[in-house]
């Protein structure tokens, strides 16, 4: 009995330590944002957020620059999500339901692209975009992001469609529905949870993306938040509280959505990677 209790206490302590390690950096981001200068540079740092400093968030958004970054990130992320799902659903459907020449090759290509680093593709994409006048535009950035997220989206959706019994499609077909109508009316509603997961994955892939954004965008007003925040690193002009407040606003949506969709996202990421 005694041993059991000691074991239990140890386990609780271990769980708390892990949670502390997991959550501390983001907590510290908030504490730093909400510290007065005096607290920040004091001999003993403040360990709890000082909520009288909440104005820093308003200040961070104050001159409209940061709001512009966040808006650009939002547009890029939304565009990437819509396009990658729009292209990913039919591709996933084709891979799941049809046998056709080149299927094995296509699957292999989709898996292969997942090991290509963005930093490797930045140079050839740069010259491609220059030729088609896509540099310094949010649209170009969306295309580059879709190229990287589309394979995983398609593979996840293929897995989801694999799980739908073909008999459900038969009924619609007997009623004379064409293949596209079968896909949109029968399959799409049934794989809605997977579509939501791929939406979260592609949205935050684009939201977090940095390499393409920093290379392809020149105009400061078109810059997304990832680039804006990265420029804070090593720069001394902006107060650290503002930097952390902006970073916190940038991080919060990603964390919130992942918590919400965590189960599907993790299942999708592993399934997409295992297949083939």
């Amino acid at each position, binding site marked *: 009995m005694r041993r059991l209790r000691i074991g239990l206490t140890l*386990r609780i302590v271990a769980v708390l330590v892990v949670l502390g390690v*997991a959550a501390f950096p983001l907590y510290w981001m908030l504490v730093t944002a909400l510290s007065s200068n005096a607290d920040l540079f004091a001999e003993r740092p403040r360990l709890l957020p000082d909520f009288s400093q909440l104005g820093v968030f308003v200040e961070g958004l104050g001159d409209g620059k940061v709001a512009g970054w966040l808006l650009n990130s939002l547009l890029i992320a939304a565009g990437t999500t819509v396009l990658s799902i729009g292209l990913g659903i039919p591709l996933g459907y084709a891979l799941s339901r049809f046998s056709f020449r080149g299927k094995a090759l296509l699957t292999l*290509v989709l898996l292969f692209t997942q090991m290509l680093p963005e930093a490797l593709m930045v140079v050839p994409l740069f010259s491609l975009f220059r030729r088609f006048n896509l540099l310094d535009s949010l649209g170009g950035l969306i295309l580059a992001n879709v190229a990287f997220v589309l394979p995983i989206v398609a593979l996840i959706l293929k897995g989801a469609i694999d799980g739908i019994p073909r008999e459900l499609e038969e009924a619609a077909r007997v009623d004379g529905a064409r*293949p596209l109508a079968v896909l949109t009316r029968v399959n799409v509603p049934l794989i809605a949870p997977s579509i939501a997961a791929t939406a979260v994955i592609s949205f935050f892939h684009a939201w977090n993306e940095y390499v393409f954004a920093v290379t392809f965008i020149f105009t400061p007003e078109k810059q997304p938040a990832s680039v804006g925040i990265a420029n804070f690193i090593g720069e001394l002009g902006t107060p*650290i509280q503002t930097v952390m407040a902006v*970073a916190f606003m940038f991080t919060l949506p990603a*964390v919130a959505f992942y918590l919400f969709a965590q189960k599907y996202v993790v299942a999708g990421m592993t399934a997409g990677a295992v297949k083939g």
Partner: protein
Amino acid sequence: MTLLEQTKVPRSATRRRRSPLGSRWTPYLFLAPAALFVLVFQAIPLAQEIFLSFTRTTLLNPTRGRWVGLDNFVRIFGDEDFHRTLVTTFVYVIVCVVGAVGSGLAVALLLNRGFRGRGIARALITVPWAAPGIAVALIATWMLNAQYGIVNRFLNAVGLGVPGGAILDSPKYALPAVLATTIWQLFPFTSVVLLSALQSVPHDLTEAATMDGAGRWATFRVVTWQVIKPVVGLLALLMTIWSLRRFELIWLMTKGGPVGRTETLVIDLYAQAFESKELGSAAAIGMVGVVISLIVITGSRLVARAVAKENP
């Protein structure tokens, strides 16, 4: 005769009308837009990059490359800095894989026992995984700040302070700091995946093992490990590939420094392209990375196949 004709005609007609596949072109209509996209934005650029690796091309004049054959490869493999980059890459990848999978397994085992609030704990530990790499690099740099960073303040308080305090500028501590940050970001993913694998371990099997007098370790080795082994293998593969392509976290924390101590292949490639402006050697470095990834993937599949053959 008439009967045969009668049965024949409607058959082919129904087949055309009710064929589940539509016409034979239907699959291509479905996949064409996405396939075209992958072709234009992945396959062709990759082919171009492969071509670049055999040329001497500078960023200032990217369309006027000169074909130099294997020169870039000969040069980088003769360069001692590149040897260091290869070693750093291997160390980085191996420590990431072992660290992320090991810590993930430990946390998964910890959370596998039912207790109140497990759902909340499980959700909370995913926070690092969900945080954008940029934000992680930013907060890590701030926490590791020489003067005001909480890490240094803590280390000084317990008497373990790094002389001068600038961990990310220290040839000795920069790589461990980058590794710790990377593993911090990865362990939620591995532990959530491993936790769901652990929950698929049949209860009666572990119980039977305990009944037979097996200790905890023996039960783990004989029952649990056998079930989760494929998942561990998959995670190791994923972590390897992700670590080989990780860029922004390392770049924003150290830019590969100090003196190249945190320079992995991808960092080296980016620095060659945009700082030395040598697109040709950058492409060659990139190809080395791609070949390493291909070897890892092929190797892991061969191992998986051999294992599957051994215990069918």
